[in-house]
């Protein structure tokens, strides 16, 4: 059995493209893109101006000023006006796109019309439209682009297709008779229409498919999260229901052994002692399982600052108690204190588990070495014992729930096999890392690396 962390649910605004907020976020993104487009236009215009003597740089400057003006308007609108209804937000973005396309057409018109490769930018608009809108709306943007560009080409004077056009054609390339050839222009326009419609078709179909899959994933993830939560609630209910009667039984056994011990014969006392041990095991198991599952469902722990040297000394003292095994402790601590901003409850449980193992599975008069050091922004805690050790084949299994090595079972009959599973999970929650080196019969070293700030 595995106790998984329940992932954060995916954001609805990301998953469903058609929320007012997601549209507004994308509109804000356009505003940023537009600043970029202005810079690019300025640089490109400058370069083109050097290369093509026919190009009039003033038009580019006018275009950039126009773009700055509209973009500042959008920006202040977006900052000042709260998110409106979905329809309204879509409307707002469509107006922006329309104005962008018109401005682009004007820029293209004054910088060579059909001669200017900037008409590729129409395709970018269609692709962006497919990210935000569905079906007809994408084709609508494609159609607007077709009409604007074709209109510019057809209405511009200076070509044989319409020798006396309404608008003057502004050359950027001198010569090139084909640019004034009706067949060439028709071919160009036909290719443009085809490619732009095809782009609209492909991108909107891909996006439709993507949205279907994405929505399905979000739905399924929500179902999974709620199923996992129900499982955990049920699990916690069951463990609590088991804990209460076992706890009362153990209280009764404790009372008998404490109050009437002298009246019991040896066999009765022996059996009650066994019952006491096994009941305590059940209680420990329930407690550990509750910790493990709480770790899975409670995202919010209480943060706090702790001083690590003091905490470690306190835990070692508490766990040693009256030190029946005569464990020799050695602290290698830095001279200055180590303050951590962390989740103290989680960290304390990690340290209690590792240190109590180091004592429990240590040999008589064995050493327990606790070393603490700071390495850049990392805190390294290493805990070494001279106990039973872990065989190389068991090392990969020690963090599994309910695993206890045969050596551990021999040394301490009663144990839940959940301590290191809890440690591993909690170290993960502290953004830390735990590693172990061990030699069977010689001892074990656990090294925990923690960031200074979780």
């Amino acid at each position, binding site marked *: 059995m595995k106790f998984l962390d329940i992932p954060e649910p995916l954001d609805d605004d990301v998953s469903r493209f058609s929320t007012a907020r997601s549209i507004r976020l994308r509109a804000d993104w356009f505003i940023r893109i537009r600043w970029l487009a202005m810079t690019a236009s300025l640089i490109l215009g400058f370069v083109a101006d050097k290369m093509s003597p026919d190009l009039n740089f003033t038009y580019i400057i006018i275009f950039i000023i126009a773009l700055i003006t509209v973009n500042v308007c959008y920006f202040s609108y977006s900052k000042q006006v709260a998110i409106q209804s979905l329809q309204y937000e879509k409307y707002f973005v469509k107006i922006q796109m329309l104005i962008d396309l018109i401005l682009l057409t004007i820029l293209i018109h004054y910088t060579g019309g059909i001669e200017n490769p900037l008409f590729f930018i129409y395709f970018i608009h269609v692709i962006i439209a497919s990210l935000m809108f569905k079906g007809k709306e994408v084709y609508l943007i494609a159609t607007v682009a077709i009409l604007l560009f074709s209109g510019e080409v057809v209405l511009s004077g200076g070509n044989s297709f319409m020798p006396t056009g309404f608008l003057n054609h502004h050359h950027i390339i001198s010569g090139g008779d084909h640019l004034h050839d009706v067949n060439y222009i028709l071919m160009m326009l036909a290719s443009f229409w085809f490619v732009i419609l095809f782009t609209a078709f492909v991108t909107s179909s891909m996006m439709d498919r993507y949205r279907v899959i994405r929505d399905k994933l979000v739905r399924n993830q929500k179902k999974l999260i709620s199923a996992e939560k129900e499982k955990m609630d049920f699990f916690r209910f069951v463990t609590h229901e088991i804990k*209460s009667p076992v706890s*009362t039984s*153990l*209280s*009764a056994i*404790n*009372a008998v052994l*404490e*109050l009437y011990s002298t009246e019991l014969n040896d066999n009765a006392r022996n059996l009650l002692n066994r019952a006491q041990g096994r*009941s305590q095991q059940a209680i420990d198991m329930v407690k550990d399982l509750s910790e493990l599952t709480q770790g899975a469902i409670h995202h919010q722990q209480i943060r706090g600052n702790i001083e690590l040297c003091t905490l470690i000394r306190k835990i070692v003292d508490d766990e040693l108690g009256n030190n029946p095994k005569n464990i020799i402790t050695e602290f290698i601590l830095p001279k200055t204190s180590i303050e951590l901003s962390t989740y103290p409850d989680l960290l304390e449980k990690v340290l209690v588990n590792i240190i109590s193992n180091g004592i429990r599975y240590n040999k008589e008069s064995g050493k327990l070495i606790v070393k603490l050091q700071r390495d850049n922004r990392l805190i390294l805690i290493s805990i070494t014992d001279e106990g039973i050790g872990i065989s190389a084949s068991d090392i990969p299994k020690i963090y599994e729930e309910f695993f206890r090595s045969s050596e551990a079972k021999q040394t301490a009959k009663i144990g839940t096999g959940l301590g290191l599973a809890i440690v591993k999970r909690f170290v993960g929650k502290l953004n830390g890392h735990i590693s172990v080196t061990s030699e069977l019969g010689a001892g074990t070293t656990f090294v925990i690396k923690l960031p200074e700030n979780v």
Partner: protein
Amino acid sequence: MDNYEPTILIIDDDIDLVEVLRITLENENYKVIDAQTGLRGYNLAQTMNPSLIILDVMMGTIDEGFHTAYQIRANPETKDTPIIMLTAVVQQTGFKFSKDDDEAFLPVDEFIEKPVNPKKLIDTVRKLLVPVK
């Protein structure tokens, strides 16, 4: 004063645990009365004026014991009666359990975790029943 038997009120819906506590406390010559709900316990505290109250956290609801403790403290008759709270729910209810965190958080004098260790229970009771000057 030799015959003085402090009365201890146990408020807990687990009748088996009440029995364990009663036997443990009577063994130390305390007089024990009990109630199975917070409300009855509160009423009994008013009428019997016990020297100490042992109160379970989880009874009918997850936090019935806390509310009972607040009620007992709110009443002038019982506001100084020491309360020992029995808990099996550390970190499950969301209530703070450590007095160090916030002195005013809960009107309880001591906590004893279940399963009950009789020696610890007696020690705690004795500590709280030391006559105040």
